[in-house]
């Protein structure tokens, strides 16, 4: 896995980070189903529906059904049902008894609660990553830091989104704490969706990219306290951006 990550250094074009099976399931390809392998069908259903919610294809405030989700994904009702349970625990779907399924509205207060929790867990993850990253992983963090800087200077939001995803996945790997990782994954979808909705208006992208770069650099250098401090600065920025969206209404 680390070897795959290191290989990106040599590539002329940045590759999509295939950090772990669950990440590759987030970009499902048609015809990828193994017959009778319900495990992976649930994973695929989850990944596809989550992506659709995060990217607003399933609009906030809209209602869906097991049937419509089944048709959308081409996956059967049973794995869909299991995926829905998981998405409900992650606050991406609301199950309304007898009334169907709701994709929740964007809720700024809820986002702020999420950020308070995310701050504590993510600080631990970044500190742990600074402590536990392998030399190859540190090389990639250093490279990410440079690319964040470039994206910052160029105000390049497309690159930023890609780098952010790679960075987040690598942090989870390098931290080597399955409980912190599980806690982060609970919040991941909702956090991404909020960003998706608002970042064009409200975010100072160069600053956000710069702050991400600072965390990546601290982890690369193995500086545990700096990793925590830069993460706090990043979360301060995200919190400010979140509060600013209230003003938009």
């Amino acid at each position, binding site marked *: 896995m680390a070897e795959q990550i290191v290989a990106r250094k040599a590539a002329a074009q940045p590759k999509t980070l295939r950090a772990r099976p669950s990440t590759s399931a987030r970009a499902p390809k048609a015809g990828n189903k193994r017959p009778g392998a319900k*495990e992976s069908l649930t994973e695929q259903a989850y990944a596809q529906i989550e992506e659709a919610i995060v990217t607003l294809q399933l609009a906030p405030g809209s209602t869906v059904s097991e049937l419509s989700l089944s048709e959308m994904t081409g996956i059967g009702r049973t794995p869909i*049902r*299991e995926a829905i349970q998981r998405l409900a625990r992650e*606050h991406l779907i609301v199950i309304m008894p007898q009334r169907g399924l709701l994709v929740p509205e964007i809720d700024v207060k809820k986002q702020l609660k999420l950020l308070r929790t995310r701050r*504590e867990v993510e600080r*631990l993850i970044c500190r742990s990553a600074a402590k536990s990253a392998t030399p190859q992983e540190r090389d990639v963090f250093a490279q990410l830091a440079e690319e964040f800087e470039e994206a910052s200077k160029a105000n390049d939001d497309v690159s930023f989104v890609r780098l952010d995803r790679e960075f987040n996945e690598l942090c989870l790997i390098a931290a080597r*704490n399955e*409980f912190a990782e*599980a*806690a982060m994954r609970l919040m991941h979808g909702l956090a991404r969706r909020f960003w998706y909705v608002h970042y064009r208006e409200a975010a100072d992208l160069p600053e956000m990219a710069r702050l991400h770069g600072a965390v990546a650099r601290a982890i690369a250098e193995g500086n545990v306290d700096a990793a925590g401090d830069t993460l706090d600065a990043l979360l301060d920025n995200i919190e400010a951006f979140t509060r600013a969206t209230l003003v938009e209404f």
Partner: protein
Amino acid sequence: MFRRQLAPMRDPSIGDRVTVRSDASLSQSAYELLEEAIVTQQVAPGSSVSEAQLSELIGMSRMPTREAVRRLARENLLEVRPKCGITIRLIDPNVQLRLLETRREVERLMVRLIARECDAAAKATLRALSADFETAAIRSDVLLFVHADKSFNELCLSICGNEFVVGAMRLMQGPSRRFWFQRSRDAEILVESATLHAALAAAIASGDPDAAAHASDRLLDSAERFARRAIEETGDALSVR
């Protein structure tokens, strides 16, 4: 493989009500029953089981059992592998240390939030629980401690007001309880844990977020010490981060 069969978990007289429960609540019941069985080691750590066996053990049908298995796999209580089936994870103090590292951060936030927000009724309940913890410490009473602990945890989760804190804490409850359950016969652990829980409940009831945070850290320090001791005892050579 099974230490003993679970006593019937459901009152037969509520059979009619059970049949109209939704899929979601059946899943939730299966999850709770299966987690309990694993936590109390009625299914032995390290054992391999089939979905059918678990289904029969908890008295629920295959679908909710399967969903429960999936959830508990994500919570690191069991492992599902394509050809090996379902394996109940061994209790590993190194895993426990990583759990405690995470729990420390989330629980500190949780008790700060509660200390600031809790009303008079919650404070009264917390003080009563604090007294129960102290009694449990004095008498080395495991049952009283377990009962107070469960009430305390559920109270905190219900009044916390932050669903993401709650979600993160719930993820860690199963493995945490199982580790503690294994060690609870050690009187020293019981007394120290009960005493620190008493202090934490009282600190939260005082309404001072800093005092609550400090008491939470002290409790986690203690839990960490016991986990490290478990590593030494088993002669575990795996290096601890």
